[in-house]
């Protein structure tokens, strides 16, 4: 870790990065943003922006249930509940007759209400309010290790599943006729999104996590013409917003998560302008 810190100190000659907590946050963003940027491309193509928003909200219930069942580890509780929640929404979307956004809205409001009910018992919610806005400066070297593992696992699954997912998002009937197990592929995808969202939520916060997943991919989509360009732009915009947002938040003394998301939103505005000029 010391070697990495000294390398970072050498390549980042800013006052902000003389501190180890900022270096940790920098590394976390280096790992997190490409992960969310890549997954975001398919979430956007699959029209799942609202879905991932609901998933983020379910973190509250996850932690709440973790407390009830006596799970010592918040992250494990969030992961388990997030994955189950994601699969449930996915299956109901597949087999239910109600429209997708209605189903997702029901799930989203239920999980927020259940989470608040449990966490705010006896007026104790203040303890969990950091969960809403997140704290990227709280990243520890141990967290970084798990983030790296998550990034690698996601990349492996992403490589294996991507083409099948792409065909499914174009036309699921056509995908099935070409031997794609569309339901399994979709479930694997929502589980990946659930894991990525739950891992990042402590640092980015329930309120902003979805923006980080969707905004870079949505901006990239305005500029890109091919799948490769979409992935490249999305990751580039996510990384750019992450690093610029983090650095600015230090100097302006603002919330890191909010700064990052605002930079992403600016990138989105620019991408819209580029798109309208091209047309």
């Amino acid at each position, binding site marked *: 870790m010391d070697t990495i810190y000294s390398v970072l100190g050498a390549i980042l000659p800013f006052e902000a990065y003389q501190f180890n907590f900022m270096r940790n946050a920098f590394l976390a963003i280096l790992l997190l943003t490409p992960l969310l940027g890549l997954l975001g491309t398919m979430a956007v*193509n699959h029209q799942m922006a609202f879905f991932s928003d609901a998933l983020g909200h379910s973190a509250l219930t996850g932690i709440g249930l973790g407390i009830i069942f006596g799970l010592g580890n918040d992250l494990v509780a969030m992961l388990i509940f997030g994955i189950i929640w994601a699969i449930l929404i996915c299956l109901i979307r597949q087999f239910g007759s109600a429209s997708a956004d209605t189903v997702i809205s029901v799930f989203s409001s239920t999980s927020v209400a259940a989470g608040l009910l449990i966490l705010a018992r006896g007026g104790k919610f203040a303890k969990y309010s950091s969960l809403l806005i997140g704290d990227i400066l709280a990243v520890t070297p141990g967290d970084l290790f798990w983030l790296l593992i998550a990034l690698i696992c996601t990349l492996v699954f992403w*490589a294996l599943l991507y*083409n099948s997912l792409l065909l499914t998002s*174009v036309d699921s*009937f056509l995908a099935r006729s*070409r031997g794609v197990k569309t339901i399994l592929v979709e479930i694997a995808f929502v589980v990946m999104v659930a894991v990525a969202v739950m891992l990042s939520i402590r640092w980015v916060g329930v309120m902003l996590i979805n923006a980080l997943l969707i905004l870079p991919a949505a901006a990239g989509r305005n500029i890109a013409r*091919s*799948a490769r360009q979409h992935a490249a732009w999305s990751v580039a915009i996510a990384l750019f917003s992450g690093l610029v947002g983090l650095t600015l938040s230090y100097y302006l003394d603002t919330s890191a998560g909010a700064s990052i998301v605002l930079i992403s939103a600016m990138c989105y505005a620019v991408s819209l302008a580029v798109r309208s000029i091209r047309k």
Partner: protein
Amino acid sequence: MPLHHCELCHIDLDRISVRRGGQILLQDVSMHIHCGQLTVLIGQNGAGKTTLIRALLGQLRYSGLIRHVDGRGLNIPHLRTGYVPQHLQFDREMPLTVRDFVAASLTKRPVWTGVGKKVRAQVNEILSAVNAESLADQPLGRCSGGELQRVLLALAMNPPPDLLVLDEPVSGIDRNGLKMFLETLLDLKKTHHMAILLVSHDLRFVREYADHVVLLDKSVLAQGSAAEVFASPEFSAVFGYSGEEEEAE
């Protein structure tokens, strides 16, 4: 009715029935789809045409037997199907080129990492078989109806199928696009050894191009050459007019 054995390799549908939720969608459909022939399925909306296609593609549960048999009536173990949907309902703003789309169906290498030289050549070859090589770099969402159908046809032909199934591929295509699509299809019929099953509402098209016509309404009402089926009383009953009147128009 049981069908007599014939001398060509074909796909033999023997009393195919599909029920869902107490409703009969198909009842005892028996027919042959011959190699080297264009078999056209006609019938009103709700006659079970798409259900039959889905059964053939193995996407829903049915009773009865679908066999792939050679000229001597012996089973051929595999039936490889290719499918061209009626239209794609997809997000036309998706950043995805025709090359990405075709490559994603051919290889495991994720197309966001790019398309390798070998696959690129393969995609070009596949597209050129349907006169669509110039579309490779175009976003899929910007293709016209006819262009999209040719790309889908190219995809359905790879790997080469024993049975090519097309679900109303010519609806909603402009005249030029339609002509080009049909020429490509007839060309493939000549050059490839496969059976083609096509659903169509366009009776003029059916009369002109079909080798064999099957009139469906839950079960097979009539089958034979276009002239035979169009002249049948069942045809008049379903469509409300006889084939002769249609010709006079």
